[in-house]
């Protein structure tokens, strides 16, 4: 009996010993990650701030997260340019089919593009809030740094909210104090966006430790932009005046237009004096196949043969190309009637068929914006037309160019380790000094200082007119370029308004701004329906280069100024049977 007792005892002992240590045995902390307290110090907060900046490019890959891509590209090429009629989806009909309904104004709230963009901008907001939260807990940060870090984080938070606001209008505002994340979207968040960006404008220094950081003037420019979006021209004007006269970039160089228009779209000349605030792109930096480069635009190269290897998206429209026609005498555009004549295209022609490009007078910016047959495409040789186009019958003869890289930059300023070569280090400049000039011109127009406006518009046009900046075919201009200045006073405020708005179209085409400009000017319905009709071939049945599917599309005023709120965000907000997030009108 003793033996039994002992053996049972010994077994029990094993159990009890194991048991007594089991509390710590079962306590396993995650490895490889950090908890919040580890980051609540100066280094941690600075690193979180870098993380908040890194969402600007619209793509996150790693660290447990895969989010974004072309759907959420910081350039807004789909939402800002395709939707405005600057360009078509491009490629072939079946690739990225989610863009088809967005382009034709039939998109529904379940369209994946909206969900991804929404998640991405709020990710940026959450990261900005992380900075502010940990900053509050940190004890080793100097007052100056607290002020600067707060300002940078609030600038970024303001920027991301601005993105949400212009996309969906009715969106929730999130700050670092929110603990219950089931938020409502029933308030106008402009005042909160303004407050965030103004804080940055008021508190940031002029010169920053790195080119890519926002400085006082960049914050001021975004602040003015937010005011412009609310048509608060009188409030925006003094800020723009200040930037125009005394603004400097983060390196302390006074803002100025680049001598050549094309320098704004070249990785070698990025962060210049014209770059007010840019999304920094880098490649070959140890990330996985160009995660920090122009991932959101990687689909938008010509299709085989030229730069990149894929995928022929984002093809400029005939309406856009026509816009660059100028009067042969004055060198001025004709905003009212530019579509009365069609710039010659090689639609229906193969690359082997003979073709002579348009010989009429054209704004020189066209060929830095649109790749077209017979014109040198950067240093890649002449665009051969059909052979670089994925499905000409479907998507037309043109290619995007501003996001592209030079052949000489291959593998140095591009990543070529992925399925598509050509993720570039060619920054997306979110705010160019040209923006500042033309916004200021808008303010002058609205304030009836038409001569001041004319002078500002001419400043931008003069740069475009610089022959040194023309696309050259050998030593001679590749086309019949002519950019004239407005030499006589505008006939009316309306004429000036038309001029400045059309100048924005020419200057910023394919840069993701056009749709949001049309909406803030409250002309989206008329302007877009006119373009839809033209590109669809309805208003001019004889045009060669048309997309019949566009002709069926229709922009509904009061609805399509804003995109539908992603259904997923609405579904997630249901509490007690009621959705806290309400859909936008009309959807």
């Amino acid at each position, binding site marked *: 009996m003793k*033996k039994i007792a002992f*053996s049972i005892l*010994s077994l029990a002992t094993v159990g009890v010993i*194991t048991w*007594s240590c*089991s509390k710590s*045995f*079962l306590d396993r902390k*995650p*490895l490889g*990650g*950090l*908890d919040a307290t580890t980051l609540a110090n100066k280094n941690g907060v600075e*690193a979180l701030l*870098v*993380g*908040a900046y*890194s969402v600007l490019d619209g*793509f*996150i890959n*790693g*660290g*447990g*997260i895969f989010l974004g891509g072309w759907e959420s590209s910081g350039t807004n090429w789909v939402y800002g340019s395709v939707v405005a009629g600057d360009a078509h989806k491009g490629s072939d*009909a*079946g*690739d990225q*089919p989610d863009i*088809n*309904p967005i382009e034709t104004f*039939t998109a529904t709230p379940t369209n*994946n593009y909206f969900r991804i963009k929404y998640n991405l901008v709020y*990710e940026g907001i*959450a990261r900005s809030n*992380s900075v502010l939260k940990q900053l509050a807990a940190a004890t080793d940060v100097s007052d100056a740094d607290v002020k600067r870090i707060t300002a940078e984080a609030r600038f970024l938070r303001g920027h991301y909210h601005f993105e949400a606001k212009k996309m969906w209008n009715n969106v*929730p505002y999130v700050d670092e104090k929110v603990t219950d*994340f089931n938020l409502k979207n029933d308030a106008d968040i402009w005042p909160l966006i303004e407050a965030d960006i103004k804080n940055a404008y008021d508190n940031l220094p002029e010169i920053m430790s*790195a*080119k*890519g950081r926002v400085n006082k003037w960049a914050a001021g420019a975004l602040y003015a932009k937010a005011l412009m979006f609310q048509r608060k021209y009188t409030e925006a004007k003094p800020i723009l005046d200040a930037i125009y006269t005394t603004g400097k970039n983060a390196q302390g160089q006074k803002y100025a237009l680049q001598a050549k228009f094309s320098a704004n779209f070249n990785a070698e000349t990025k962060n210049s004096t014209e770059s007010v605030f*840019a999304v*920094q*792109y*880098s490649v070959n*930096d*140890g*990330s996985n196949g160009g*995660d*920090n480069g122009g991932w959101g635009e990687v689909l938008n190269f010509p299709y*085989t043969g030229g730069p990149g*290897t894929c*995928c022929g998206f984002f093809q400029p429209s005939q309406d856009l190309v026509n816009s660059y026609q100028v009067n042969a005498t004055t060198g001025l555009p004709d905003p009212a009637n530019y579509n009365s004549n069609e710039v010659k295209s090689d639609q229906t022609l193969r690359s082997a068929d003979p073709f002579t490009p348009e010989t009429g007078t054209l704004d020189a910016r066209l060929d830095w914006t649109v790749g077209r047959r017979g014109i040198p495409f950067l240093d890649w040789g002449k665009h051969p037309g059909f052979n670089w186009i994925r*499905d000409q*019958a*479907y998507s037309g003869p043109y290619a995007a160019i501003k996001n592209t890289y030079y052949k000489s930059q291959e*593998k140095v300023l591009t990543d070529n380790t992925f399925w598509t070569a050509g993720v570039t*280090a060619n920054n997306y400049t979110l705010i160019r000094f040209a923006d500042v000039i033309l916004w200021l011109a808008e303010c002058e127009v609205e304030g009836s200082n038409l001569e001041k406006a004319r002078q500002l518009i001419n400043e931008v046009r003069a740069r475009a007119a610089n022959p040194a900046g023309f696309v050259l075919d050998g030593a001679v201009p590749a086309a019949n370029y002519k950019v004239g200045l407005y030499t006589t006073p505008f006939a009316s405020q309306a004429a000036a308004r038309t001029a400045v708005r059309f100048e924005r179209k020419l200057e910023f085409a394919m840069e993701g701004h056009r749709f949001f400009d049309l909406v803030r000017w409250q002309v989206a319905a008329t302007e877009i329906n006119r373009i839809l009709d033209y590109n669809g071939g309805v208003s001019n049945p004889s045009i060669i280069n048309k997309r*019949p599917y566009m002709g069926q599309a229709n922009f509904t005023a009061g609805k399509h100024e804003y995109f539908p709120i992603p259904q997923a965000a609405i579904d*997630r907000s*249901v509490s007690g049977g009621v959705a806290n997030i309400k859909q936008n009108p009309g959807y």
Partner: protein
Amino acid sequence: MKQKLLKSIGRAIPMLLFSMLLCTAAFAQRPISGKVVAANGQPVSGATVAVKGSNLATSTAPDGSFALSVPNDRSTLVVTYVGFDGIEVPITGLSSVNITLKERTSSLNEVVVTGYTSQAKKDITGSVAVVNTTDLKSIPQANAEAQLQGRAAGVNVTIDNRPGAGANVRIRGFASFGDNQPLYIIDGVPTGGLGGLNPNDIESMQVLKDAASASIYGARASNGVIVVTTKRGRQGGAKVAFNMYYGTQNPAQGFNLLNSQEMADLTFKSFRNANQPTPTTQYGSGANPVLPDYILPAGKFEGDPAVNPDLYNLDLNNINGSYLIHRANKVGTDWYDEITRNAPIQNYNLAVSGGGNKSRYMMSLDYFDQQAVIIESFFKRYTLRVNTEFNVKDNIRIGQNLQILVSEDNSVQNNGNNGEGTEIGFAYRNQPIIPVYDIKGNFAGSRAPTLGNSGNPVANRMRSKDNRGQNTSIFGNVYAEVDFLKHFTARTSFGGQINYGNYFFFGFKTYENSENNTGNTFTEGFNRFRSWTWTNTLAYKNTFKEKHDVQALIGTEAIEEWGRNIEGRRSNYFIEDLNFRALNSGGASGQVANGGPYTPAALFSIFGSVNYTFNDKYLASFTLRRDGSSRFGPNNRYGIFPSAAVGWRISRENFMRDVKWITDLKLRASWGQMGNQRINPANAFDQYLGGPGSSNYDLNGSSNSTIQGFQLSFVGNPDGKWETNETVNVGFDATLFGGKTEVIFDWYQKKTKDLLFRLAGFAYQGAGPVSNPAFVNVAGMNNTGIDLMITQRALIGGTKGVNLSGTLTFTTYKNEITELAEGIDFFETRGSRIGNFVRNAVGQPISSFFGYRVIGLFADAADVTKSPTQDAAAPGRFKYADIAGNPDGTPDGRITDADRTFLGSPNPDFSYGLQLNGAWKGFDLGVFFYGVQGKEAMNYVKWWTDFFPSFQGNKSKELLYNSWTPTNLGAKTPIAENLSNFSNNNAVNSYYLEDASFFRLKNLTVGYTLPSALTNKVKIDKARIYFQTTNLFTITKYTGLDPELIGADDAGGVDEGIYPTVKQFLFGVNINF
């Protein structure tokens, strides 16, 4: 902590062993001898003769004789042999005994291993499926999970047909959105699956299905438990078994696609129907397409200066500038044919086993080599198993089981199974006019203009042939058992596994595609994983007053898992030579290094069970387990899982005595709770991470470097706990007609509550909750179903006549999601080029298909006008059903998101397996049918092949010949047009839905055993040769490659070009001596 634990182990083991030694006792012994024969008088060789109540045993010689020593206090021998009923022989006063064995007519007395213990089948009150391992192993597969298909009622197995890949084994439907894999226990040691086990070494396999049988495994049991025991030696002389087979595998038919001329015709037709000018790049500018002699340069004919071979220039450093020439394949390349082949499969297994009075051993050496039916792809495996057991004393046994496995394949970076980027995907995405090779023997491809963007799958395979994935694993345990005081057995077992994996692959520059890789990369990674399990049990077994049988067990178990991995990549390799493929050789730019530890997981448990039988008639059993798991936060760290079961052998009642045809009938009922703890061990914690692609940023504007950043990457759920699954099971086991018929029937209901659901966080909280959310215990799911197994045996013409047997397994489950989370009625999965195919919704079974219902094609403009408003409606396009839209749920006259509906699901009504065996003289025949009924699939391949603008791949004959035209109004396929919109190829709808039921002859084997008179002359006990064919035919209405579609549990049944089931033809040999 670790030190502390080691210390405690160090302290405990000697104590345990010491206590075991104390229990040793010695008794005087006497000799006994005898002979064992079968009913027909033939001697039985290899039968085990054991002394009851001890561990003394021997096995019979070829003439059936045996001899052994018996302790004086023992009075009974137990004689057992495979295929015969065990028998107890009293030997009191005898020194010699002749024993006659009866061939087994029922499996009632068969002892099977269940949770931590073993039981006679007749005493089991839970639902346990005993797998016939001979039938199981008759299917040539690398993985026993795949072999399990159709072998056990209540188990659904979907096979991944890639060599070396496993299968989805699902017991009684689905109980989780996370991991529905059963728990696998091999020789008492838990493991992730059977992929690391040589199937030839399996001795027995039991599937524990209900709570009564499985909940002793507590928080890991809710998906069922599969208990595997490997072979061990028996007493007697050394036995050698050699088994081999060699055969060929056939890839079967590919897709029914167009040839070159047909594709050209379709291209013209589709452009014209879209009012687009017909393209002339390849096919000329005439009214009808003309096939060119060359597709690169495009549309050229012989004699054209552009196709002068002297111009040919392939420069890998200037791929876009290269001048390549592709001759058109005017007949048409059959790309499926090009990437497939008849491939050999072979397996050799040599096992030696035996033992003496004091020790037993089993050693097995195995080589398995399966070449894939897809070219340049294989899986090889080498295993060595050594199992031994030693009787240290009469009542003390020490033993070990050990397997060393090395496997190798080249399927790394193959883009998986069932996707557009696989070789099979490229088989339908390539145009037929593209040849495999160009005029210089280099690869040809979609570089030829206007011919799509597919890769060349032959090139992909050829380039991948030297990629390697290698895995080395050590798996096993050591154990000690001591019997004491007649009724007690204490056992301790320490086991586990160590895995090392290594893989490397080279990404080549490509030149033949429209979308080329202009750079090369090399990636290599290592990973290491280990786990250990330490189990201690104390078992008690006794019979009181000859009527009360009691078996009890208590135990403790500790488990820990841990692992690390590392991966590096470099690019811009100077040359692509095989010998140059090392990380060190790569270019300086674009270096990537990744790696990290897995968060360790630990489990500590105490458990117990009691089985009580009164008079062999009334049975009851109880189990209880308390699990502590590190995977959950301190708030919910411990869970308790009880179960109870009762059984009634009604056939033992007096009133049943007269029912002669019922030999044995037992009614069973059980209830219990099981858990599922399989979630990320880091689920409870908020985590901040950083990474080059996720949070670093080039603040300095350098263009090629970043500054490190961090982000909140995961919002943890500290309140997480296991899913609890409550199961009720009612069933019966019947043995009829003296054992000729056996029926096992179960009905069950399985309700999962606190189901772990990855509830997407709010976007406003950070990306972790959106793209990688924490699990929260909010959802619920129900499964009900029946499992039925019927075995029938027949002997025609006496013992020398034809011996027939058949086994039917029948499985049903009905799954319903009962709850997701507040305000969340569904979540969608299985994304595609046109959106999600699957909606997992409350009130619907898991993985339900969701989309628009096609009610026909618009006949004409008038039809469009009179139908509900639909975006892009036009004659020849889909007409969708207007189902809802108004606030009250009635149709609103327009087709909107609200009109999408549930279209079906891949969950079958039932599945079944039928094994028929016959033996006559030396011949044996085995036939195995397997079928699944009432399952649906979304044939997403049709999106690629039935719509012209869904990328410019090859298209179906259906699209060219039987699509809608104004004169072909009865067509099912919409008009062929180069336009993409909501009403043709841009929405998930019922056009893709198909019935995927099937009936398959899985196995047909004919064997012949050479007469023993012949083989005995060369000292061979048994020699058998056989011919076998698997998957000879499948009857199905499904039009895709294979109706058996493996996929994620919550996203199954969507076909994008599945790796098909292959036909095999084999020759095999079994030799025992």
